[in-house]
């Protein structure tokens, strides 16, 4: 019977190699440098906020590093499971709209028909402050 074969097989490889990945091992994990932290915070516009968050990123990277073990020679990346089908394109006709008022209602800061954003593209001081003081590694 199928069950017996599977269970015997499991007992034979009792090291627990297959299936479940055990807790992330630090071997091979990249050191997350202060520069990297700054860079990621800038790109993501989300701050780490604590040492724990950095540790979590390190664990996440270590976890992802397991992919190196897979042989993907000659394998094309898969972007969508529907890759064998044609993407639907509807005809270029206006079927709805004229809802500016409705949409503007959801914003906190609006002037006439404009969403209001604060000025310019200057790097916020707090980003630099945070990286340098709290999270700089020795």
């Amino acid at each position: 019977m199928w069950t017996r074969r599977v269970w015997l097989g499991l007992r034979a490889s009792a090291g627990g190699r297959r299936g479940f990945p055990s807790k992330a091992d630090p071997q091979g994990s990249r050191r997350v440098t202060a520069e990297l932290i700054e860079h990621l915070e800038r790109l993501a516009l989300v701050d780490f906020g604590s040492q724990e968050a950095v540790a979590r990123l390190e664990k996440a990277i270590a976890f992802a590093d397991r992919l190196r073990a897979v042989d993907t020679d000659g394998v094309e990346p898969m972007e969508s499971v529907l890759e064998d089908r044609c993407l639907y394109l509807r005809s270029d006709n206006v079927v709805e709209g004229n809802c500016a008022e409705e949409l503007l209602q959801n914003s906190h800061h609006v002037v006439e028909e404009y969403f209001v954003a604060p000025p310019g593209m200057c790097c916020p001081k707090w980003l630099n402050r945070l990286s340098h003081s709290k999270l700089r590694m020795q």
Partner: protein
Amino acid sequence: MLGRTLREVSEALKQGLVTPTELCQRCLSLIKKTKILNAYITVSEEVALKQAEESEKRYKKGHSLGDLDGIPVAVKDNFSTAGIETTCASNMLKGYVPPYNATVVQKLLDQGALLMGKTNLDEFAMGSGSTDGIFGPVKNPWSYSKQYREKRKQKSHGESEDSHWLITGGSSGGSAAAVSAFTCFAALGSDTGGSTRNPAAHCGVVGLKPSYGLVSRHGLIPLVNSMDVPGILTRCVDDAAIVLGILAGHDPKDSTTIQDPVKPFTLPSLTDMSKLCIGIPKEYLTPELSSEVQSLWSKAANLFESEGAKVIEVSLPHTSYSIVCYHVLCTSEVASNMARFDGLEYGHRCDTDVSTEAMYAATRREGFNDVVRGRILSGNFFLLKENYENYFVKAQKVRRLIARDFVNVFNSGVDVLLTPTTLSEAVPHTEFIREDNRTRSAQDDLFTQAVNMAGLPAVSVPMALSSQGLPIGLQFIGRAFCDQQLLTVAKWFEKQVQFPVIQLQELMDDCSSIFENEKLASVSLK
């Protein structure tokens, strides 16, 4: 009446044995009584009663819209609902009222369903416990069931009744709890890595993840565009099939929906099992699987075999890498999808107005919890120019290998795969929070996320109670776009196992009359 199937209630409504307003009021009353579960974020009482009124008018004229007319349903709070707050359990969208309905919500409303409310979830559907939203965790109704409490009394004394409550699983825990506690007949969830099937298994309900491309994602606040699917939670497989029949189909507003015509279907009874081939993926037998789930899985396989079906062991060789692959792809797509939350057009906006970037950064810090921020940062790491090939593209290649594994298995003659849904029954919240969100997700999504990567349909069906009196569900995985076949097999299985009804007497004492209503005896189904 609340314990009946959709078809039975629909028939009762047509025959005038119960009115939509009565149904609505009973469900609303039950929602209030089961408030401790925290399954609902928003209860749309006025809306539901108004819809009930309109439904009643239709029934009086004999013009019901269909099987769902007058039926209370609930919707996970990451689906946009016009005029009703949609928060994704996050500060980022607290107070956000969408100006439109998600396509699937619109379809339910067009069929006359009554929208009872928006259900609780993990923040932005990230998590496997429904514990990480700003409105607090969802409690599993089985924590309060007679079946569980009796087993607990045998073990421990003097512990406060509520301290050991169990999680629902996630991230559609609110929807699962709402259906499990009889507050609605069907609920929408979303499924990116198992978020519908996982809580379904823990709450003893049916959780269906349709094929990717079958159901529109327009209006579902996206997590991972290439894997998200609206999920359906019901108390029986037949009900799930009814809802799927209504929701499936091409949507011009979602270009990832297939254009093949889709018709509502009824599920035939399986009579000739000899033509059915069930596959058991050997790599899913992991050491972490609880012995109870393992034994139920084995029992289920034997059941199919004893009834004449062919049951064979199959191999999905890349299983051990699928959770890692999912982790990379998920965080990468999340990093991209969460970029839209900048405080300008909708959602939370911080007070500072120094510069655009400062405003974006502070808004996002205030709006997102640690889990969301962690995933955004991880995702951005994998998408860095120096990492793109080694992580993101690599994961996409592994995704193809995983999808190919399934194709190979189905090509070898297997019709449906049978696997566990979860590693064990629902655990107490105190135990669950000992590990962080990412670790838990990696553990709990083990059996479910490969399905999302391959875009296949899958359904979790409750099988039996554990020795602690808690539900355990098993998962069936079907071929792409063979949802009907999948549900046919699931329905047969459901009938064989006769999963017990949850006994929630304590919460439902005042509603006992609902179950003893003599009028029900005369409901006849054509």
